């Protein structure tokens, strides 16, 4: 049952990762647009242009981090399925051999050992997932700070202030969505000490 919950959790994690990647793509496009706008605004938006370029590289880093997250998560789908199948087989074997005392009973110990090894390897993969999650969290925190700086820079935009502020708010809206998605994602991660 635990592995079944894990499998459902991983599927949801993958879906959430897709949403974050899609946001990173939108941030990238918006940053490109912001760079064009800052060029039109001239000297008054020089700082805005620098921060927009930072946001652009942030979006690329976030997409790459989520890509690595997704790769581990996809690997886990097949591993968890395999372990679930092994677990079910072990249960059937244990039931079959419960009243049997011949030499074939030794296969149950082999099956237990295989199951334990599988659980260990699964726990290691889940630990990777936690590490990816932490990295993504750090990256997003940086993104939030950059987005705030962009809002500040917009106020120096002179006659273009309103337009630049609108763009900065748009960034803020995108970036603020990501921590909520990551919180959802964390909900589906099994606790670190109890991964299976």
């Amino acid at each position, binding site marked *: 049952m635990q592995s079944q919950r894990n499998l459902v959790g991983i599927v949801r994690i993958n879906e959430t990762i897709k949403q974050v990647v899609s946001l990173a793509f939108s941030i990238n496009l918006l940053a490109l647009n912001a760079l064009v706008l800052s060029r039109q605004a001239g000297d008054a938006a020089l700082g805005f242009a620098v921060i927009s370029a930072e946001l652009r590289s942030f979006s690329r880093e976030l997409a790459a981090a989520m890509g690595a997250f997704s790769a581990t998560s996809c690997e886990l789908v097949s591993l968890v399925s395999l372990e679930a199948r092994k677990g079910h087989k072990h249960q059937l*074997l244990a039931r*079959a051999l*419960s*009243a049997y005392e011949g030499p*074939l009973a030794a296969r149950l110990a082999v099956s237990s050992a295989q199951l334990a090894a599988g659980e260990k390897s699964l726990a290691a993969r889940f630990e990777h997932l936690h590490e990816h999650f932490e990295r993504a969290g750090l990256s997003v925190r940086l993104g939030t700070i950059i987005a705030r700086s962009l809002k500040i820079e917009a106020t120096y935009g002179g006659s273009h202030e309103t337009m630049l502020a609108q763009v900065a708010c748009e960034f803020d809206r995108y970036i603020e969505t990501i921590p909520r998605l990551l919180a959802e994602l964390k909900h589906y991660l099994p606790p670190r000490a109890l991964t299976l």
Partner: protein
Amino acid sequence: MKKAYTIYQSGDHRWQVIARDPARPNYLIDTNEYLISYQGQSLLTDPGGVEIFPAVFSALSEAGNPEQIKALFASHQDPDIISSLSMWLELNPTLPCYVPWLWAGFIPHFGGNQETFRPIPDEGMNIDLNGLTLTAVPAHFLHSPGNCHLYDARARILFSGDVGAALLPDDYASVFVEDFDRVIKAAAGFHRRWMGSNSAKLDWCERAAKMEIDMLCPQHGAIFRGEDVLRFINWFAELKVGVLALAK
């Protein structure tokens, strides 16, 4: 739990049926597994679905030594026939499994590898069980397009897969057909729907009628013996099956 019943014994040559599982969940069809033993080695026919593996194994180990099982025989590819394959291989990874060649690429989805499968050609083949010759008899399209029965000429017993199968009520305790008409009633619908071809059926009936069969052992239901064997073959020959049975 399932129980093993000896239906034939001559010295070291024995047929046992593992049948009647009152404890099985009612959404699973009941199945008969047959253990053919000869001089300390056994072959298990249609070993059953993965969910009933514990029941089959327990019944087998109560009745004998499951270590003596040296081969499996799958009449066709259905899950109630052979989805327990991976469990049997868990106990003995080198156990060979005889299957109609048509399914040799499909059944591995239940488990096994290239070394596991012994494909049976369309025309059938002999299988050696420690000196006893068993013959895989073609029964294609009855009901699967690649389907084989298993004949033991020495015991005069034919394992007939789904041919002769009947969906009997739970209170039918005997492993044998005690009341032909009652069992045939339970078999008619099954045969009309599951047997695909009238010409394949007639061809099988013609061949079976010429064989010396004391017991006809289906994978579901009860075992026909004595005169009931030919009675069944004649009844089956007359029955309209497959698309003909569905035609308005």
